[in-house]
């Protein structure tokens, strides 16, 4: 029973307000050979609606293979809030959350891990490093295990 992300139809939910960043991230993940579907959201509200479903309980996505790529600086809410809500939701708490943001503030990093984030990556400003980091993230995804559906 193989639960490797790249070998299962795991959906990547990308919450990133900057469309340019979203595009660059997608391109570089694809370059790493990750072909999973990517659903982009540019605002926190849309993403919350999608993750928690119409009833807002999250039951709709229970056991669905998801991976969340989360930016912390969103126009309508902070990524930290989304992280907190996902990780405290009975049905969504096992979804791996990768925080991918420009903030490298030590307090912020600590807070995210305290809330249960699985990986925290700072976007390098230099594009070569950025592309490289995303490609490595893609490679990481290809060997990463996600929880099996119950």
């Amino acid at each position: 029973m193989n639960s490797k992300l790249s070998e299962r139809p795991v959906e990547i939910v990308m919450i990133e307000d900057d469309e340019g960043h979203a595009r660059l991230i997608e391109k570089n993940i694809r370059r790493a050979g990750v072909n999973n579907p990517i659903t982009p959201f540019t605002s926190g509200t849309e993403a919350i609606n999608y993750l928690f479903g119409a009833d807002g309980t999250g039951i709709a996505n229970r056991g669905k293979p998801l991976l969340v790529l989360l930016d912390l600086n969103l126009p309508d809410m902070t990524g930290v809030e989304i992280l907190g809500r996902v990780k405290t939701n009975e049905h969504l708490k096992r979804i791996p959350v990768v925080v991918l943001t420009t903030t490298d503030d030590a307090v912020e990093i600590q807070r995210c891990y305290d809330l249960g984030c699985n990986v925290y990556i700072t976007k390098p400003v230099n594009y070569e490093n950025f592309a490289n980091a995303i490609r490595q993230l893609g490679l990481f995804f290809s060997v990463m295990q996600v929880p099996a559906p119950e």
Partner: protein
Amino acid sequence: MTLANADTATKPKKEKRSATVNLQPMLLGVGFALLIAISVATVLLVNRASSDAGLLAQTLVVQNKLSEILLNVRRAESSQRGYLFTNRESYLDDYRVAEPAVKEGVAELLALTKGNQKRQAVLVRTRSVVEAKFAEMARTIELNKTGNREAARAEVLGDAGRDIMNSLRDTVSGAVSDEGRLAAERSDSSRQTNTLLLIVTLVGAALIILIGAISIALVRRNARRAEVARQELAGTNANLERIVEFRTADLTEANEEVQRFAYIVSHDLRSPLVNIMGFTSELEALRKEIFDKVQTLTAEIAVLNGQADAAVAAASPETAAGVAPDAATEQLGKDFDEAIRFIKTSIGNMDRLINAVLKLSREGRRQFHPQTVDMQALLEQIAGTVNHRVTELEAGLRVEKLPVVQSDPLALEQIFANLIDNALKYRRSDVPLTITVRGRTTGTHVIYDVEDNGRGIDAGDHQRVFELFRRSGRQDRPGEGIGLAHVRALVRRLGGTMALESELGKGSTFTVTLPKRWSVESRSAA
């Protein structure tokens, strides 16, 4: 605002208060003057009363003497008559006693009333009458002694003796009644003087009591005002403290706002920068594909035009890339590369600047933890980290004895590492570099100098070098112009000041003045 208002509000009151303060010594002076006046008046009046009493006594004495004189003359007369009548010597005893007594009395009175013309005149008259009387009496006694009794009797029977006597009696009684009048006058004047004395004393006492009452009222009013002023002052003080607190909070908030602003701006600038850089790289990647395509198309056009070697080129498109591109395409490629290069360089610069701002804002937000710092050890540690560069440059780095300070060690390390790094960076190529770090203490502060013999800073740039992104002199060393701005920001946050003494081509001395004891609470003041 509130402060200024309070100040102007208290001013007029102050003036009023000083007026009352001036009134009091004046009142005291008036009181003293009054006392002196009363004393003088009393002394004068008492003197007058005593001289009045003396004059009155003198008048009584004069009256008395005059009566005595008259009595003695009568005694002598009756003694003379007794003698003449009885012809016995023993009757003359009284006469003999009376005569010198009368003469003596007249002389005494003359001496006593010297200076009073009227009295003297009366007395001189009295004396002549008395002398005439005694002469008459002496004559009759003499006649009788010589046995001439009839002549003596005739003398006595004659009215001469009686006339003299009457005249004397009139004179004396006139003088006595004169003296009586005088005595009445004098005793009147004496009574008046005494009344005046009493009035002066009473009025004086009343005035002094009045002044005392006014003084007491003034003192009480002043005390009341002082109490009001004290309360006002206490109120102002409390207000002032509140204002200071308020301003401090304002400043702290503004400072934090600036820090937040810098942080957010640098963050938000970073995001589009990633895009610009990312898509520039994408463009670069596309460039190869586009130019390869252009190459291929050029080759194809050449084939279609039926030029030489076209068949070979068309048969294998892979070799098209190997074919040297024509001049126009090459120029296009160069222009493209140049544009990309400029974009990338600018992005790199912008990236460095944003990182610098981010670093500064992060430093600004860092909490300081003051503790006693052994500056000697700290500087030697910094010297250790730059040791290889010092050796490489054959430079000298000397750390003299440095005083300890109570401050944030990390901030201090950054400050001095930056200053020493600058000294190493901006050296002169013609002289071996020497850097000296020395320290001294004043009452409340510690002062550290970092001195070098480097290229120095132009006097016009002494302020500028501390500004963000500003640099001085030849721009032949890497850097963003952030080091000294950072150093100054840190020193200020530590409650200290930064100074620079430098001469172009001679060297620079950076002076860091820090409070001996710095605590987190004192930060707001910095």
